C-alpha cells in the first residue's frame, strides 16, 4: 500500500529561475578586479578578475530551465500504518534543467539532514529517507525543502517544500510469556483446558453408555474387559476446552513524560523520550499479540473514549484492527468522571493500563474487581526525572507520588494485581568509608520487567487450569 503525495500539485507548474546571489556577487567582484586592473594599468590585478569573469561567462550560458517537481511516496503496511522503529519515505525529484538540488529533510524529533545531491542523466533522482521514532501513534513524517540549482550554479529555481504527511506509527510489540488466565474461562472451545465435560480436552472418566452419547466415543477395550458379553457399553468422556477473554483497557486521558515540568503542557516533552501513552500502547500491543498468538480473544476499551470500543475477537485481522485502534488513540479533552464502570464480558481478564495520577482509573478497576473480574493494573507512568525541577515542583511531584502509591496500595488490598511496565531503577546506596570491611548487605534489586511479572501472575492461574469453570 503506498501513498503518493505530489509536492507541487498534479500538473507540473512553471518554475521561475533567477540568478543566484553568489553568482552575481562573484561576477561583480571579477568585473571590479578587472576594471581595477585596467584602470591602474596592472595586468596582474586584471588577471585576478579574469577568472571569476570567465567563470561567470561560462556559467551564464548554462542556466537552469524547465520545471522542478518533487513527489513523495510512502510505503505503508497493509493496515495503512508504519512501524515506529522504521519510518520511511521516498522522494522522486524531477528537474530536467537543473544541475543539482539542495535538500533539507527535517522531522520533529530527528536531526535535520541537508545535502547537495546530483541528478541522473534524465534530470531525475529518487531518494529514500528513513528514521526511527521513540513515539508511536499519529505523527508527521518528513518535511522536505528543496532548491534546484542550475547546471553551473549560476541560477536557482524557486524554493519548494513537501509538507509532512501524517502517518500512524505502530507500537513495537515485545515478546511476552503466556498471560495469566481469568478466574473463569468461557465456552466449550479454545486453547485452555476446563473442568466441564465436552470434547477436545484430557480424559475425564469412563462411563456407561447413556442415551445421547456418541457411538464413536465407545471404548471397546474397556467394554470387552468389563462386559465380555456386551451387556453394557462403556464410553470415554473428556474435558471440554475453553477460551479466555482479555479486555485491555487503555486510559488515554494522560500523556505525560518523565519530566514533571512538562505535565502542564506549556513545555513540550522531549521527542526522544517515551510518554505514558507510548508505554501504554507498547504494553497493549505486546499483550494483544500474545493473547492472539495463544488463540484467545482480546478486546480494547478506552476509558477516555467510550464510543470506540473494539469487541472481543481473535486472529490476524482482528489484531491488525486492534493495533490500528490502539495507534490512533490520543488524549481527547478533559477527564470525564463516570458513575459506573463500563460493562465488560463476564469472566473476562481485565488489564488496565493507566498512570493512576487521578482516582478515576483506580475507581473503575476496583468496581470491576468487585464484579468478579480478575483485574491486572499496569502502571504506565515512565520513571520520573526530577533533576530539573524547582523546589515547589519537586514538592508537588512528591505529593502526587504519595497519592499514587496509596492508590495502588488500595487496589492491591482489593485484590487487583499491579505492576509497572517500565522498571524504575533503584538508586544504589553510596558506599561510605564506614562500609569498608563491613559484611555486604543485600542491595535492593531493581523491580522485575513485565515478562517476569506476567510469569509470576500467570503461575497462579496456569497452575490450576480451568479453576472455577462450570460453576
Amino acid at each position: 500500500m503506498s501513498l503518493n503525495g505530489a509536492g507541487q500539485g498534479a500538473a507540473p507548474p512553471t518554475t521561475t529561475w533567477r540568478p543566484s546571489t553568489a553568482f552575481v556577487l562573484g561576477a561583480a567582484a571579477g568585473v571590479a578586479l578587472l576594471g581595477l586592473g585596467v584602470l591602474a594599468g596592472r595586468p596582474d590585478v586584471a588577471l585576478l578578475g579574469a577568472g571569476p569573469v570567465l567563470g561567470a561567462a561560462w556559467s551564464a550560458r548554462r542556466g537552469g530551465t524547465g520545471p522542478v517537481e518533487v513527489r513523495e511516496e510512502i510505503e505503508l503496511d497493509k493496515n495503512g500504518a508504519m512501524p515506529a522503529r522504521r519510518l520511511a519515505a521516498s522522494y522522486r525529484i524531477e528537474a530536467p534543467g537543473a544541475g543539482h538540488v539542495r535538500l533539507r529533510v527535517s522531522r520533529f524529533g530527528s536531526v535535520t539532514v541537508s545535502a547537495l545531491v546530483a541528478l541522473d542523466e534524465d534530470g531525475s533522482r529518487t531518494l529514500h529517507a528513513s528514521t526511527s521514532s521513540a513515539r508511536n501513534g499519529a505523527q508527521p513524517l518528513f518535511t522536505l525543502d528543496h532548491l534546484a540549482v542550475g547546471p553551473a550554479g549560476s541560477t536557482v529555481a524557486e524554493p519548494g517544500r513537501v509538507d509532512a504527511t501524517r502517518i500512524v506509527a505502530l507500537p513495537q510489540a515485545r515478546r511476552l510469556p503466556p498471560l495469566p488466565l481469568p478466574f473463569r474461562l468461557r465456552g466449550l472451545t479454545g486453547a485452555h483446558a476446563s473442568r466441564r465435560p465436552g470434547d477436545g480436552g484430557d480424559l475425564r472418566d469412563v462411563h456407561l453408555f447413556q442415551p445421547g452419547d456418541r457411538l464413536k466415543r465407545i471404548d471397546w477395550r474397556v467394554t470387552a474387559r468389563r462386559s465380555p458379553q456386551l451387556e453394557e457399553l462403556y464410553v470415554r468422556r473428556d474435558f471440554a476446552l475453553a477460551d479466555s477473554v482479555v479486555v485491555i483497557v487503555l486510559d488515554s486521558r494522560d500523556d505525560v513524560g518523565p519530566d514533571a515540568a512538562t505535565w502542564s503542557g506549556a513545555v513540550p516533552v522531549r521527542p526522544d523520550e517515551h510518554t505514558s501513552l507510548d508505554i501504554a500502547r507498547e504494553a497493549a500491543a505486546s499483550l494483544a499479540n500474545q493473547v492472539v498468538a495463544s488463540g484467545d480473544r482480546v478486546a480494547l476499551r478506552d476509558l477516555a473514549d467510550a464510543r470506540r470500543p473494539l469487541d472481543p475477537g481473535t486472529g490476524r485481522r482482528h489484531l491488525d484492527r486492534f493495533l490500528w485502534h490502539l495507534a490512533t488513540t490520543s488524549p481527547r479533552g478533559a477527564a470525564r468522571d463516570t458513575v459506573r464502570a463500563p460493562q465488560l464480558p463476564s469472566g473476562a481478564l481485565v488489564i488496565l493500563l493507566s498512570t493512576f495520577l487521578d482516582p478515576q482509573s483506580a475507581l473503575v478497576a476496583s468496581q470491576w474487581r468487585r464484579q468478579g473480574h480478575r483485574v491486572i493494573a499496569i502502571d504506565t507512568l515512565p520513571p520520573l526525572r526530577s533533576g530539573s525541577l524547582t523546589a515547589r515542583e519537586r514538592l508537588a511531584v512528591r505529593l502526587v507520588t504519595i497519592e499514587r502509591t496509596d492508590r495502588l496500595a488500595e487496589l492491591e488490598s482489593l485484590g487487583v494485581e499491579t505492576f509497572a511496565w517500565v522498571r524504575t531503577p533503584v538508586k544504589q546506596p553510596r558506599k561510605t568509608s564506614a562500609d569498608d570491611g563491613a559484611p555486604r548487605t543485600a542491595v535492593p534489586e531493581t523491580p522485575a520487567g513485565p515478562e517476569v511479572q506476567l510469569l509470576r501472575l500467570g503461575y497462579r492461574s496456569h497452575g490450576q487450569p480451568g479453576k472455577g469453570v462450570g460453576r
Partner: protein
Amino acid sequence: MSARDLASIELDLRPSVPAAALRVTAGVAGGLAVLLVGFQGWRDAVNADGLWDGFGSPQLTGWSVVLGILASAWIVWRTQDHVAPLLAVGVGVASLATAGGISWRTFVLAGLLLVMLRASALVGGLPWDARVEIDVLRPVLRSTGAVLLAVIAAGAVAGFLDGTNPPDFGMKLLGFGAVVVAGVWLLPKSWLRGKDR
C-alpha cells in the same frame, strides 16, 4: 536536549564529502591569498621597519592582513554572508601595493581566489554537517580547472606582452604549457578521434 539524543534521518546518498570540508577549503584559500599578498607586500616593502610594519608597504599594513584572515574565518563560519567576493576585491586592491608584473604568484593567487569563490558559492547556507555528493563536485572542479587554464593562458600572453617586467623562465614554461593545453582543448574533437576500425 542535545542533537545526540535525537534520532538521525538516513538518506541514501552517493559518495559524498561534508560541507564543512568545502567551507574550510574556501576559508583556507582566502587566507592563503591574503598571506600571499601580505608576504609579497612584505618582500616589496620599502623601508620595512620591524615585523609589524614590515608586513607591507604603507598601503598594506599588518592590520589589513589581520582583517583578511578574519574575513577568511568569517567565510568558514558564515558562508552565506557572501564575504568571499568582498575579500576577493580586497585582495585585488591589496595587490596594487605590491610590485607589478605577472609571475607564478599571480596564477596561484588567481587560482586561490577562484577556488574561494566557487567553494563558498557551492556551500553557502549549508550547515556544517551537510553532505555534498562528489557527483556535484565533479563538474565544478572540471569547470574551475578549465577557467584556470584559460586564465593561465591569458596571463602567459599578457606576461609576454608586458614590457615592464621580463617574465622568468618558469612562467614562460607555464604559459607555454597552458597555451598548448588550451589549444588542444579548443581543437575540434573529430581531429583527435582515432580512425574507426
